[in-house]
């Protein structure tokens, strides 16, 4: 547990705008490969950092020790660093940041009794034993459980203070079966906000989900390659979520807009069908906590929801203090740092397309010749909003009915064009949060959405 009370260090701050952060990240993980424990470890990394802004430039320093001496050291070093830059470049002299003020604490530490590592190994073995006993066609199994706790205390020169402990925990099951002597695999992730004890209890709870995963995998073994080219598709919630994050979200992070993203040219313009609204939620939707809740960002700004697209029109970018100054806007609380030694960057929190009024079954029934795409693999996007997502689970749709399963494929498109083809949006919403977003630093993020009907390019043969 970190010391939440770091306010007394404000006496050490120089006259320039200063942030001081004390942080610890703790992780735990176990992996079974075909029943053998191949990974069983914990890690913890903590320390203190200071960041100082003067004349449009930042100095930053961090130290793994958490002590009065270390605090003094990082403040001195970050001061030296910003002075080094200021001395050589005076072109941004006089630039000031917008000021924010908030005091807030949020602790998601589990109230349940902490389980031993043996408990979690036994938990995984129960799942593995179930797979072995029930599914002889499964040729390889990887079962992984892992958790990450991020605990932070922040103090800024404008008087903001915050403390947060934000954990997440996930269970990953990756199964393989043979197709003509070659492996076909399918991975499923479970879990989200909370520590292991909050997310996982009785292994039997997951047996029906394993049954469903195996059914999809065996369908995939008998699957077909998608036909390459532009197709009408139903993107299920997880793919709509990754689309919201990768293809739209990144292009509307204000630092990437300053770096040349096409979104900079589209503000106030129609960039999607009127059915599409897209929001980066700070911490809750209709009073339900999001998978990665952020209440105060790492610059001491209250985190606010950012409506990026409203009824098809591009409305807002996500900001930190410096980009808000640049765009004459307001900081939105999107500045987040992964480790104690990282500086805050503009990052998404929980990015989602909002639900519509259609039923998924009716959407599938409406497609004459296309695909129902269910599970994403990795995804990437571009400053042009051109995106690529791997699709690891999907089915043909022929005359409104699901057909054969698909082998692994990839979809692509230009998001600001593709979103104009959205003509149906389902009335439900699903969040996923097992992945890490990569942008200089890794970062836990939530992605969510309904199913959408649209046209995309699909890779295949």
């Amino acid at each position: 547990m970190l010391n939440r009370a770091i306010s007394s260090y404000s006496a050490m701050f120089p006259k320039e705008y200063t942030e001081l952060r004390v942080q610890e990240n703790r992780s735990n993980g176990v992996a079974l490969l075909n029943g053998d424990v191949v990974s069983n470890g914990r890690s913890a990394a903590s320390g203190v950092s200071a960041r100082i802004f003067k004349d449009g430039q930042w100095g930053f320093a961090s130290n793994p020790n958490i002590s009065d001496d270390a605090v003094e050291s990082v403040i001195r070093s970050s001061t030296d660093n910003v002075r080094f830059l200021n001395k050589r470049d005076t072109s941004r002299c006089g630039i000031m940041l917008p000021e924010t003020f908030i005091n807030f604490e949020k602790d998601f530490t589990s109230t349940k009794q902490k389980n031993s590592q043996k408990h979690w190994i036994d938990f995984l073995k129960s799942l593995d034993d179930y797979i072995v006993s029930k599914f002889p066609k499964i040729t390889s199994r990887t079962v992984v459980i892992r958790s990450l706790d991020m605990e932070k205390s922040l103090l800024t020169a404008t008087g903001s203070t915050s403390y947060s402990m934000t954990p997440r925990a996930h269970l990953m099951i990756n199964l393989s079966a043979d197709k003509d002597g070659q492996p076909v695999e399918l991975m499923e992730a479970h879990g989200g906000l909370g520590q292991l004890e909050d997310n996982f209890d009785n292994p039997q709870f997951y047996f029906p989900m394993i049954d469903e995963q195996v059914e999809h995998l065996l369908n995939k073994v008998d699957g077909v390659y998608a036909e390459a080219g532009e197709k009408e598709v139903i993107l299920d919630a997880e793919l709509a979520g990754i689309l919201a994050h990768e293809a739209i979200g990144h292009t509307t992070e204000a630092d990437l807009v300053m770096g040349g993203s096409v979104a900079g040219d589209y503000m106030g313009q129609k960039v999607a069908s009127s059915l599409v609204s897209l929001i980066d939620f700070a911490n809750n939707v209709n009073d339900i906590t999001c998978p990665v809740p952020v209440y105060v960002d790492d610059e001491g700004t209250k985190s606010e929801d950012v409506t990026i697209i409203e009824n098809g029109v591009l409305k807002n970018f996500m900001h930190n203090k410096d980009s808000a100054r640049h765009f004459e806007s307001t900081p939105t609380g999107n500045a987040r740092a992964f480790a104690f030694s990282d500086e805050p960057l503009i990052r998404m929190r929980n990015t989602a397309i909002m639900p519509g009024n259609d039923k998924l079954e009716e959407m599938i029934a409406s497609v004459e010749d296309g695909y129902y795409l269910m599970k994403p693999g990795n995804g990437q996007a571009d400053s042009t909003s051109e995106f690529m997502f791997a699709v690891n689970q999907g089915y043909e749709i022929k005359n409104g009915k699901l057909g054969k399963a698909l082998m692994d494929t990839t979809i692509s498109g230009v998001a600001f064009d593709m979103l104009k083809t959205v003509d149906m949006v389902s009335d439900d919403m699903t969040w996923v949060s097992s992945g890490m977003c990569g942008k200089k630093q890794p970062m836990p993020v939530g992605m969510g959405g309904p199913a959408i009907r649209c046209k995309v390019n699909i890779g295949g043969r």
Partner: protein
Amino acid sequence: MNSQDAVEYIIETLKKRGAEKVQCSVMDSEKKELNIDAGEMSLFRTTFNSGVGFTIYKDNCKGSTSINKLDKDSIDGAIEDVIELADSSEPDEAYDIADYQAPKSFSTGNSVANMDSMYDRLSEFSDHTKSTYPKVILEQAIIDFTYRKGIFANSNGVQFGLEKGMYNFSPMFTSKDGVKTSSFNYTGFSAKDLHKPLKDYGSIDRLLKESEEQVVSHQVPGKFNGQIIVTPDCLDDFVSTVMDFVTDIPLISGRSVYKDKLNESIADSRFTMHSKPRSDELQSNYFITGDGYESQDCTLIENGILKTFLLGIYGANKTGLSRSVNDGGAHIVDSGNVAFNDLVKSMKKGVILSRFSGGNPSDNGDFSGVAKNSYYVENGEVKFPISETMISGNICSMMNNIVDISKERINFGDCIYPWIQFDGLTIS
């Protein structure tokens, strides 16, 4: 504690607590980093860190932990933690640590950053980009100097000292001409010093020039089966995937498509790739494997023949195969005999693939993804930069369908790659 005291204390304490085998590393690091964001010098970052990591095998049960503190209380806490982990686990006789090797120290690069040189080189690069390529926006350009010093040791008496100081540079950029926007692109290099302008390392200047050309792009004319020339910047995506197939997990699980291919052909006979973590050809070296053996150079694929799997101790014991002499990477692909321009001239219809935004390949080698920062070629002529173009194929088939390999290569500091022309891809 200092590093030496910490290593000795950890190993001795854990042996007294019943661990039969212990391996431990203690590493201190200092990083100096300058950042350009959206074309402006924005951040100077200094980070200090310590890394203490150890793995034990107790009654053939494994536990691992890592912390970033060197004080006795923190280390004692981590020792209790790792014993609980091992006591909780399941035995596996395949676990082991490296055999005894004579103590040795390894060192490369400087121990102190030249901050003036770092600033001046980065500033010079920014000025060059603005003046020579006015359409280019440096989204982010990061130069850092990272110095690491520490010890790796184990309970078999292995004791290696490590000291490494290296500059790393990674620019990311997009070009804009009015509302016309290119795909972003990026590259990078590692070097022991900064004796020449940053634009002259690796492929940086060529990629900046190409970025400006790419503000106007077109789709390829329909779907076709054709060839691709994979550039040195993009080749790592493909050859590293091939080598990932022969690492511990795919081979232990039996999922690897190459599980029965040791000393058999998996690529065209003109393809040879080495892994040389100790080579003077590369600026960035590594000296010991993750398991604690002194790393050695080796040939991974020789004239198309797979010469080694990349197995650690556990993977080797689990499969009954040989441990590899390094952890892979540090790739050096032998050059061919054809000039890059002649590769292009020989291509009837295809794509010069400079960046590949693709899904992780399936276990069977199938892949598909989008060609980025790439060019359409027809009848031996580069026609135009492309967008919204997908490339699909199978990596295993692709390695057997090499048309030719360029005689030019790019040295990125941690790998050396030529241009390679492949046949049999679906382009749409």
